[in-house]
């Protein structure tokens, strides 16, 4: 993935946070996006990390969710049992970020194994907080690089439910949140169809065409009638992002 497309993902994710108050953040692109939102349009956005840091205001991009800078700048630091039971589970948090190794057309996610569960070709890290972020946050944003290997017609394992088998499944499962409202990739943005919940290509990043996105998708991707082109990063966004990334030591920037 080029630096430009990685930047585009982060910028689009950051914009999607506008108007929201609280955000459950993981490390990497989500953390960068959330901090970019704080540095641009949403200075009061409350960042919540699963390590128990509520209202963290890191001055440098954290390298782990347990980074000391998160605890030092947080409004409150609570235990891990508390962050899941009292803060995530009841549906208090507006936006949650997700990523995975595989996604399907209903935005279900696999971060567990490639291949059979009992004899995986690749053992992935596993669930972490994703399944409950996906069910409890009022909505989620998925950040993933797009390729036929990651955007698949059938998941090897369903770690995290997006829309399950389609419309109505989240309600049937008793989930409180609305589910993945955007899948932001290095090529464009996919959103769930309001009726079927199947992902539809709605935005292309500058310079990307529909054919390229369809070629990077392992199922017959639906395309919106009026696909828009994502606005490129503004000067202000780019400047803020550069400042943020400068806070991460160079030697670790590729981690």
């Amino acid at each position: 993935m080029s630096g430009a497309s990685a930047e585009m993902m982060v910028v689009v994710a950051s914009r999607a946070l506008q108007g929201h108050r609280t955000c459950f953040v993981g490390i990497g692109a989500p953390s960068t996006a959330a901090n970019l939102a704080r540095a641009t349009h949403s200075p009061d956005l409350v960042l919540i990390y699963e390590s128990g840091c509520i209202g963290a205001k890191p001055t440098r991009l954290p390298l782990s969710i347990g980074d000391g800078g998160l605890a030092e700048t947080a409004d409150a630091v609570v235990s891990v049992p508390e962050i899941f039971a009292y803060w995530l589970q009841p549906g208090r948090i507006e936006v949650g970020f997700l990523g995975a190794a595989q996604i399907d057309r209903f935005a279900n996610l696999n971060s567990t194994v490639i291949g059979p569960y009992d004899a995986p070709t690749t053992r992935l890290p596993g669930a972490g907080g994703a399944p409950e972020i996906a069910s409890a946050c009022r909505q989620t944003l998925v950040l993933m690089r797009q390729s036929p290997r990651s955007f698949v017609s059938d998941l090897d394992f369903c770690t995290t439910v997006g829309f399950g088998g389609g419309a109505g499944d989240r309600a049937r499962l008793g989930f409180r949140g609305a589910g993945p409202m955007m899948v932001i990739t290095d090529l464009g943005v996919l959103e769930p169809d309001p009726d079927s919940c199947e992902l539809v290509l709605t935005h292309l990043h500058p310079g990307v065409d529909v054919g390229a996105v369809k070629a990077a998708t392992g199922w017959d991707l639906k395309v919106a009638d009026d696909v828009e082109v994502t606005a490129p990063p503004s000067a202000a966004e780019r400047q803020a992002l550069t400042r943020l990334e400068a806070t991460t030591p160079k030697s670790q920037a590729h981690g």
Partner: protein
Amino acid sequence: MLVQLEQTPRRWPRMSGGQVVELADAIEDLVHDGDAVALEGFTHLIPFAAAHEIIRQRRRHLTLARLTPDLIYDQLVGMSCADRLVFSWGGNPGIGSLHRIRDAVERAWPQPLVLEEHTHAGLTARYVAGASGLPFGVLRAYDGTDLAQRTSVAPVICPFTGEQLAAVPALNPDVGIVHAQQADREGNVQMWGITGVQKETILASARSLVTVEEVVDRLEPRPGGVIVPWWVITAVALAPGGSHPSYSAGYSERDNSFYQSWDEISRDRDTFSEWMRIHVLEAATT
């Protein structure tokens, strides 16, 4: 007294109360082959010194429980200490894979590793139930995922609303090990910063060991400080720097570049074994 109270079989025996002992002695006394052991610490305060002592004492057939196996369990698994891993997210944070754990799962090297995996919330609920003396914990989780078929979770129905929720079995390790900033001479412990599930680990475990950066005359309560009293801790051992390459807020910084270099060290079996020989097996005990 008319009734002589027998020592009823208790799930929380306390061999001693917060005795300050040598780390090697504590591991020898508390950790036995075949034990279920939880070495906790959520990114912060990971008890590496205790894990290295377990490796040096060549414990075998352990069941290892931990939310995030991290490098600490990559090392224990790669050094043949464990048969079984209970976890919820097994990666090198921000870097990539835990190569030793993957090698064990994918290619049974140095031996097979049975996995029991949860979500963070699910495994946390297991610790909380264990600390609370309950046989199970309840949460909203697992519904609709393939995890439900692959782990210890069962449906439980709310007797008031009829709603179905997930029950997970209590986790009560034989030994819980955590690292903290300070102990006093009575064996009371204080930790601060991100404190994860460390208190629950101590309280859920039959035996517990806390390694500390420093033993002080008197604990001075700190903002965000969690104090665990001596009488629920089996032993305390001094292990300054014992959380490296993790960190102990107020004492050390996370060694991010070590986490990064671990990717290379651990990718190859020989490089890993050589590194462990030099830096753990033949290293002087702290």
